[in-house]
Structures are given as structure tokens and as C-alpha cells.
């Protein structure tokens, strides 16, 4: 039985690169349940995509970011892996920060929940493989990033 889609779930992603062509990744683990993705926020009602992303980087990493330019928005249908009734819309921005020195390799998320291991790390775009990313849309974005070089 195929469940009818009833809602959109809008996710806003920030592609943050440093001077060494390293990109910031977010990894969460609880038991065997883990995923690696680009840093993102879930868009809340009454919020703009820009504010959503700035809020997320502030909450999780404690840094201010600037949105440089829009990079990609999903142009195909993607059902949520977690919720049957939701269609995912993912919006990616290239972002920049003047506080990159505050983002240490392997740092823990500032707002992590108890029992959940949530870390950030840098990886060179060239060395990042699609299979390291959990979600299909992130993999597609990695492909576009690689082509863009």
C-alpha cells in the first residue's frame, strides 16, 4: 500500500567550505542508528529559509554565517525516509563564516540531546565519497559540487 503524501518537509542546508576545500559534515549516532549529512535545519512555520539556516548554525555550532548563494533545490519527488506522509524539499546554500576558527574538527554539537552523539567534522570535497552520506539528495549535491570545481 502506498501512503498518500499529506505534508511537505522543508530542509535548509548550508554548504560551508574552508580555505582548504574542506566541507563541513554533521554526523549523529545513537546505537547502530547513525547518519552523516551536510549541516541542516528544518524550516519552521513563519520562518524564512535564510533565518532558518542562520539559526541552525548558531544553535549547533555557535557561529554566525552569511549566505553566499543558492546552490540547489530538489527538483524531483522524494518521500521522507522517516515519515510516510511527507515529501522532502531540500534547499542548499553555499555559506560562509568569519568564525571558521571556532569550528574544530570533531567538535560536538552545542545543543546535543542526551545519549545522542552529534559531531561535526571537515573533509576535503575530493576525498568525500557518496556512500559516506546517508541521504540521496546529499549524494546528488556532492556530485554537483564535484562537477563545479
Amino acid at each position, binding site marked *: *500500500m502506498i*501512503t498518500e503524501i499529506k505534508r511537505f518537509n522543508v530542509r535548509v542546508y548550508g554548504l560551508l567550505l574552508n580555505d582548504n576545500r574542506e566541507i563541513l559534515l554533521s554526523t549523529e*549516532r*545513537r*546505537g*547502530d*542508528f547513525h547518519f552523516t549529512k551536510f549541516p541542516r535545519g528544518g524550516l519552521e512555520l513563519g520562518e524564512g529559509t535564510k533565518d532558518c539556516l542562520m539559526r541552525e548554525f548558531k544553535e549547533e555550532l555557535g557561529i554566525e554565517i552569511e549566505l553566499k548563494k543558492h546552490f540547489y533545490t530538489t527538483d524531483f519527488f522524494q518521500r521522507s525516509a*522517516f*515519515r*510516510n*506522509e511527507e515529501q522532502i524539499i531540500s534547499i542548499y546554500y553555499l555559506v560562509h563564516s568569519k568564525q571558521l576558527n571556532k569550528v574544530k574538527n570533531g567538535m560536538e554539537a552545542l545543543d546535543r*540531546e542526551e*545519549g*545522542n552523539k552529534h559531531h561535526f567534522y571537515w573533509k576535503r570535497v575530493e576525498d568525500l565519497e557518496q556512500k559516506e552520506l546517508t541521504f540521496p539528495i546529499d549524494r546528488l549535491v556532492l556530485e554537483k559540487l564535484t562537477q563545479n570545481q
Partner: protein
Amino acid sequence: MKTFFKDIFDYHHQTNQKIIQLLLETEEQLSERIIYLLSHSLNAHQIWNARIIGSEKVGVHDIQQLRNCAKMDEVNYDTTVGLLDHYELSKMIKYKNSKGEEFENSIQQVLFHISNHFSHHRGQIATALREQNIQPPATDYIFYKR
């Protein structure tokens, strides 16, 4: 409902840990059947978690080393709590049984099944322990809530 399942799995985790601790203390007197029953219940939890999140599965009849069981139960418990935070309970999971037949059940049905499965096999472990003259601990849910 998610809070309910977190509580239920917290109960199973604490109770399993209590049983494993007792088994470690009485290891020399234990029958193979007791180790099999414990292994099987932990394997089943691991397999159902893996069916939901799409990770690697152990074999349902694998025999686990007793000294690894506390850790395995902890990882299983953490995995279930982690997936509860992300998946909706009505999501349908497609899976194959050990004979290769395909089935589909909701995450809620799966979690309820794991819970019943633990209670069933802990009952068998308790009986097997009494046969070896070892007093099993009180494992009723309502004792855990008191």
C-alpha cells in the same frame, strides 16, 4: 505513543541488564539453553532494529558470548531510542523472514512484537534458571514502575 515505547524499552533494557548480571555471576552453573535464549532475544532485537534502519543484521540463532551481551543490549536499546526520535510509528517496514518470504508491518507493530518477544523468552530463562536452582530476579513491568 513514542514516550510510551521509550518507557517500555527502558524497562526491557534495565531488566535485561539485571538478568545478564545474574548470568555473569552464575556462569559456571548455566545450561547452554539459557545462553541460547538470551542470545536469541538480543539477536531478534538487533535484527528488527536493522530492518527498520537498514543496517547489517546478526543471525537469529547466533550464540553470543555472555560477556558481550550487556553491551549488545545497550547498543540495541540506544538504536531503538534513536530511531524513535526520527521515524513515525505508522511507517511500514518491508522485510524478509529467514525463509525469504516478504512481509510488511508498521514500526509500531514491530516494537510491540520485540517487547512481547523479550517477555516471552525471559519467562523461559526464568524457568531454566529455577531448574538449575538459581533464583531469577523479579522482572515484572509493574515492579519496575513501583
